[in-house]
């Protein structure tokens, strides 16, 4: 597969499943296929994509204000998410809908942020999946701090699989340029923290191609901080799974951080508000669309006789059901109470803020009166 050409040459791109769907050997990555459920992976890839396309449709219908599509990045997200343990903590950006899905976060709750009914939408502790963070790079330091807590809780290197905990922080290629991301690398490396940085290099930061940020592969950034980085084919769900599993195990056992660069592509525009035709060629996008991560696994399943027509039919049915749920669930998302911002700014509301709330209530009530049909 044609790699992202960086001026300073390329990092080996580790791959376990070739674009035509056949398995490949890799000198670094190994995956015992007995330990994975390719059908479950495929199902989640399909559901993730459906979640995404349905959200786009809802945005077009005016039900959402905005949606950041993950189209093309399903394998990276589903592969990484499938090797998380319950106790692991995830710090996503705003595009990890597939990880959220695999983590068991109700997909409907992902919509509130983009519908404007909430700034969050779920309890981060319910599924150990943090709220989306919109400030590029900021979450990487939260992951570092959380990992510092894990270390202090002796929840690392104990050998107890139910206890040892890893932190998985997601970031984009553009995020590698933010100072805070690099500080996170400094801290994670110096303290050998149980954190894995999973960078989906989708080759674009809105309109900025990867070369705007760097002339070398993203995976190499880690070497400057003293920990290991690996570049995997981000459209190869097996490679993403294997690399993440290894990195998480290393982290849980006290081996320190890893940077994973999953080389993939943002097939859609940055968000539904963006117009990618202004800065990149249809040919490029076309080229990458042909490296569809789903088709790849579909081919594998068919070739291996793992997925029969019933299986694929079942997946489609689940997909339709999900779409149905999303359409209904989105419209059913509760309107936020005007009290909400006042209630959740502090643990207990200061007197002057309470006074502001009273005035606000009075005002909102008066509006409702005046808007009431005469």
């Amino acid at each position, binding site marked *: 597969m044609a790699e992202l050409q960086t001026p300073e040459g390329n990092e080996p791109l580790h791959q376990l499943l070739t674009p035509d769907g056949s398995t490949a050997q890799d000198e670094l990555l190994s995956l015992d296929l007995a330990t994975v459920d390719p059908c479950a992976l495929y199902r989640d890839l399909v559901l993730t994509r459906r979640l995404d396309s349905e959200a786009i449709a809802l945005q077009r219908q005016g039900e959402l204000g905005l949606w950041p599509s993950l189209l093309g990045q399903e394998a990276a997200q589903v592969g990484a998410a499938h090797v998380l343990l319950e106790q692991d903590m995830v710090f996503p950006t705003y595009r990890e809908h597939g990880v959220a899905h695999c983590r068991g976060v109700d997909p409907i709750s992902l919509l509130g942020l983009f519908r404007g009914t909430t700034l969050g939408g779920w309890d981060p502790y319910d599924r150990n999946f943090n709220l989306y963070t919109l400030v590029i790079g900021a979450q990487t330091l939260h992951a570092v701090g959380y990992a510092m807590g894990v270390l202090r809780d002796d929840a690392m290197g104990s050998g107890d699989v139910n206890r040892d905990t890893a932190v998985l922080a997601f970031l984009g290629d*553009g995020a590698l340029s933010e100072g805070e991301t690099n500080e996170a690398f400094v801290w994670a490396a110096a303290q050998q923290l149980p954190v894995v940085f999973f960078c989906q290099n989708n080759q674009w930061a809105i*309109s900025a191609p990867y070369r705007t940020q760097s002339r070398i592969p993203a995976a190499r950034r880690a070497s400057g901080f003293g920990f290991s980085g690996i570049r995997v084919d981000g459209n190869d769900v097996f490679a993403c799974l294997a690399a993440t599993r290894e990195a998480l195990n290393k982290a849980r056992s006290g081996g320190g951080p890893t940077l994973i660069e999953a080389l993939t592509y943002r097939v859609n525009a940055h968000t539904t508000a963006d117009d990618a035709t202004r800065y990149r060629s249809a040919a490029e996008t076309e080229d990458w669309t042909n490296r569809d991560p789903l088709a790849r696994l579909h081919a594998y399943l068919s070739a291996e006789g793992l997925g029969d027509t019933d299986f694929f039919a079942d997946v489609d049915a689940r997909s339709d059901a999900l779409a149905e749920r999303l359409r209904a669930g989105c419209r059913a998302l509760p309107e936020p109470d005007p009290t909400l911002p006042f209630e959740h700014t502090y643990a207990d509301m200061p007197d002057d803020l309470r006074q502001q709330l009273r005035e606000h209530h009075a005002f909102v009530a008066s509006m409702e009166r005046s808007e009431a049909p005469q």
Partner: protein
Amino acid sequence: MMLSMVKALNDGMRHALEADKRVLLIGEDIGRLGGVFRTTDGLQKDFGEDRVVDSPLGEAGIVGSAIGLAMRGYRPVCEIQFDGFVYPAVNQIITQLAKIRHRSSGAVHLPVVIRIPFGGGIGSIEHHSESPETYFAHTAGLKVVTCATPQDAYSMIRQAIASDDPTIFLEPKRRYWAKGDVTEAQDPPLDKARVVRPGNDITFIAYGPTVDTALQAADAAEAAGHSAEVIDLRSLSPLDTETVVSSVQRTGRALVVHEASLSHGVGAELAARVQHDAFYFLEAPVLRVTGYDTPYPPSKLEHDWLPNIERILSATKRSFSY
């Protein structure tokens, strides 16, 4: 010529780029894309990648490199993509950009403009609707200005670029698309406020996105029998106290309107100055209609959270109840 504020800013920057080859634009997505609001649309095509620079993703880098460029003789115009993303640059802005002239006893001047689309009301997500002006207005060494009309956008951006002082240039994003007449008429100085609606009974003081709201409220108040004067501050640092105070000395009543949170907002400084300079003239305390002391809410709540005509009118009523 009728132009949107976006086009007026674009023309103003084009004008500056043509007039002075040391002027240079730098920011995320401002080149090929023309900026997420298209404010710099077409400028990279016409002035090249060296003068309209698509930067790496880092606000500290944008402002820090602008300081170095300015030391080399350039006049950089930075774009911060949204109000909520200026904070990674705050260390460079507050500890360096604002202080280097003072540190160097005037030997180094930094003609750097930092453009920031600000304010809410566009139904966006977190960090895309904030009003950070107080942080900068409280920082000595920075000029802080904001435009309310395409005409001011067109003239003020050029004045800001021409200024030898670092200038935070706040653009009221929800007014980006409203059209207004733009001429080459003589412009007031960058640091002067303007009476945009004469009145006799009360003074509404607004800036940026709330000027239009205040004007509409003034018309509504007229109906209720109150003649409101509306002042567009334009400059938040320095503040044109004189224009404000002389108006309030006439009307005896003042009401400040801004989107930023109430406490320690620009309205506080205005109230402090007015109660001081117009002490014997005030018929009622200076009132403030602002955002509340909470983070910016989810967009479904923003209409009621933001200062709006109704809240200005009820505050006006309160003012006259004294």
